[in-house]
């Protein structure tokens, strides 16, 4: 990334050299998905940036307010995407469908979630459409449903939206209510292979100035650079703390992976699982970590110490890399990290939407006690 005078910590454009850092930083903000297609996705994006040139990365305030903008993300399972990789045109096709419907030409793209593969495909779409990428997103991490966004909280509709699967098939959704859109999409996503390219939340830059979370794309690049600098995990956690505010709750070995397999609310994908971590050193506590598609709560000797919407992640201490939730093994030594989410998620409406109660854990968040 090339720096921009007067904009400390942010960047003016994204080049092929930035892709590894973007990937690692995006994984920090959503450690759910494994690395089975890392090399494929990163080489695809790097190739696009080499061929089409760097993608300008702009603050929302730097874009004329009337500029039409659209968000993109990967909807569904990262594992499904790894096994059925994109043909390459899905994200552009999804955006074009909304352009045709609304008879607009989007002047910028932004990630629905600046995290996991969704952060990278926003750069892909911008490179293919040859438009700038906004340094903003709707989640600041990843949440399970497409209306779990700052835009939704600000009254911006996710629809019309288009989802294009790796089969080339697509679905266009127009509904009056955001939560209905997610329910309608899920069945279609399963049908087209388990994942789809989503284009949603068509709006203007002026609306996004108040409705989106700023600086979240450049943030993942900064975090990614730290993660690529393989260093002592203690040093890494300290450095991450200065950028993200994360803190280490405990270090310990995974003693047990419990797959409870009880049915969950159909609107929250994945069965609940639990992880038991025995703290090494320190207080010697036993940690119970509740998993959904992300980690949603951490109990230490029975006391709740962190919970959604905190971003909770696991650092594989032995390897010095983030541990993804689908690759955990008993015996792994992990640092349990908690990072504050963006402030909007601790508001009453935010907590109602993505807090622990939405995952069936009706306890007061530690920050509120």
């Amino acid at each position, binding site marked *: 990334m090339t720096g921009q005078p007067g904009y400390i910590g942010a960047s003016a454009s994204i080049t092929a050299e930035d892709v590894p850092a973007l990937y690692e930083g995006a994984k920090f903000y959503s450690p759910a998905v494994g690395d089975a297609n890392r090399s494929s996705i990163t080489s695809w994006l790097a190739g696009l940036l080499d061929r089409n040139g760097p993608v300008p990365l702009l603050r929302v305030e730097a874009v004329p307010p009337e500029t039409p903008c659209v968000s993109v993300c990967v909807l569904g399972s990262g*594992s499904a995407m790894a096994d059925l990789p994109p043909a390459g045109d899905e994200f552009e096709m999804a955006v074009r469908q909304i352009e045709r419907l609304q008879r607009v030409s989007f002047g910028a793209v932004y990630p629905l979630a600046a995290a996991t593969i969704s952060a990278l495909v926003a750069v892909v779409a911008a490179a293919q459409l040859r438009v700038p990428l906004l340094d903003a997103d709707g989640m600041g991490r990843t949440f399970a449903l497409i209306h779990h966004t700052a835009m939704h909280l600000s009254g911006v509709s996710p629809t019309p939206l288009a989802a294009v699967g790796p089969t*080339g098939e697509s679905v266009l959704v127009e509904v009056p209510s955001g939560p209905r859109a997610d329910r309608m999409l899920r069945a279609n996503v399963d049908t087209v292979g388990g994942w789809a390219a989503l284009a949603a939340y068509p709006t203007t830059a002026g609306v996004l100035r108040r409705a989106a979370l700023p600086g979240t794309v450049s943030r993942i690049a900064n975090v990614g650079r730290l993660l690529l600098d393989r260093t002592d995990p203690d040093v890494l956690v300290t450095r991450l703390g200065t950028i993200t505010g994360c803190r280490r709750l405990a270090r310990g070995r995974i003693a047990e*992976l419990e797959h409870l397999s009880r*049915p969950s609310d159909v609107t929250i994908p994945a*069965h609940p699982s639990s992880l038991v971590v025995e703290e090494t050193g320190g207080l010697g506590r036993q940690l119970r970590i509740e998993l959904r598609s992300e980690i949603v709560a951490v109990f230490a000797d029975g006391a709740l110490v962190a919970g959604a919407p905190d971003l909770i992640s696991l650092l594989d201490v032995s390897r010095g890399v983030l541990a993804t939730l689908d690759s955990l093994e008993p015996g792994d030594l992990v640092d349990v990290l908690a990072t504050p989410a963006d402030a909007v998620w601790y508001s009453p409406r935010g907590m109602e939407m993505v807090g622990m109660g939405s995952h069936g854990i009706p306890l007061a968040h530690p920050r509120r006690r």
Partner: protein
Amino acid sequence: MYDHQMPAQGDDVAHIGVTLRPHRAYAAVVHGATVLPVEPVAPARADLEGVIAAAVGVALRAAPGGAGAVTVDLAPLLLDTLVRTEAEVPPVAAVRIVPRAATDPALARSPAELVERRIARRWTVAGGHDLLGNELTPLDGDGLALLCEELAGTGIRHVAIVAAGSQARPAHEREVADAILAAVPGARISVASDYGGQGLVAREATVVIDSALTALTERVLDRCERTLARLPGSLELRVARGDGGYSTPSRIRVTPVVAFGATEALELCGAAHLAGLDDCRVLLSRDGRPVAGEVRHGLAVVRPDVPVGIGTELVVPMAVLTGAPPDSYPGGADVPVIRPEAPPHVLACVGAAISQPASWLDEVAFIESAAELDHVRRDAEERATAMVMANGAAPGSTRVAEVSTVAVPYSPSGTIRIRVRVAGSPDTSLAGR
């Protein structure tokens, strides 16, 4: 009275570990707690044959029963062959079975140059399933017929086939493989469903490397078997696996990629053995750079990853050593840290000599109840156990070394990933086969 024609068994036999480097071989003899590095004395040769012969001689002097088995680490030779552009490797045809062809050139090829340069020709045939085995697109019969016709005209005889979702439903891969065998009799076909794992690109790279290494592996194992046949006693040949275990030569002949990347896991296990530890962190050196790996319950910690020098993920597990700060241990000192003094090739030989038959299974399944989860888990454990016995474990000696089931994030409820690792004790009745 000891009969040299009978398989040597029990504590009175030594085991030989061999690591085969591009320009020479190394060996060590392990007899109980005693480890004897083997150094052929001139005019003895330092090649595979010379080193094995020297090691058998050392074993005869060290143990009353001589040598029981020879475990060979082929990995350094296999990697060297893949990396060298001028190496004699048969051209490979790669067939992808997905709903539609890639529209971007980067997505149509392997991200790893080392893999891509072994592919002489690519085809994409419409078809494939999702992760749970639901058909996404019927197999394109016309496309398959055209592929067979074109392939027959190329002279390529090594074919790597990967289909989306074939871990759950291999039907399309098998149909394509059958058609190719009919069109190109004698074709050597590697199908991704034989290896399980996650990610089409990783699965494709695995079968491409598998196909590319077939001929070399055959030649090396032929040499090993001829050498053992000439030596006294009835020596069992074993081949080290990427996960630090071993398989029988007959298994490795049909799945050579399983032997890929074995050296790192062997070095870890060798270092732990020399230190008398079952659980430890091992600090090694690579090109002057400190790296680390772990041993748990006597087995190297392994996982599917990006092996050094390859440039893409593979689905066969191996110990990938990670950078380690030289003066710190991040483990909180809950396990010992060792810095072995023995050279890496000695560690690899010791690790090979003490290795156990092993198997690994990595799958996605769908469950709707706790009872179904138990069933899926038991089924996976039973299949992994059958695999480890095929790899040379004695009946009744197998144990589930690791098992994990985790929900696949952002997937429909009930989608789980299950991984099982099984190890066993050597079946000594296999000696001399």
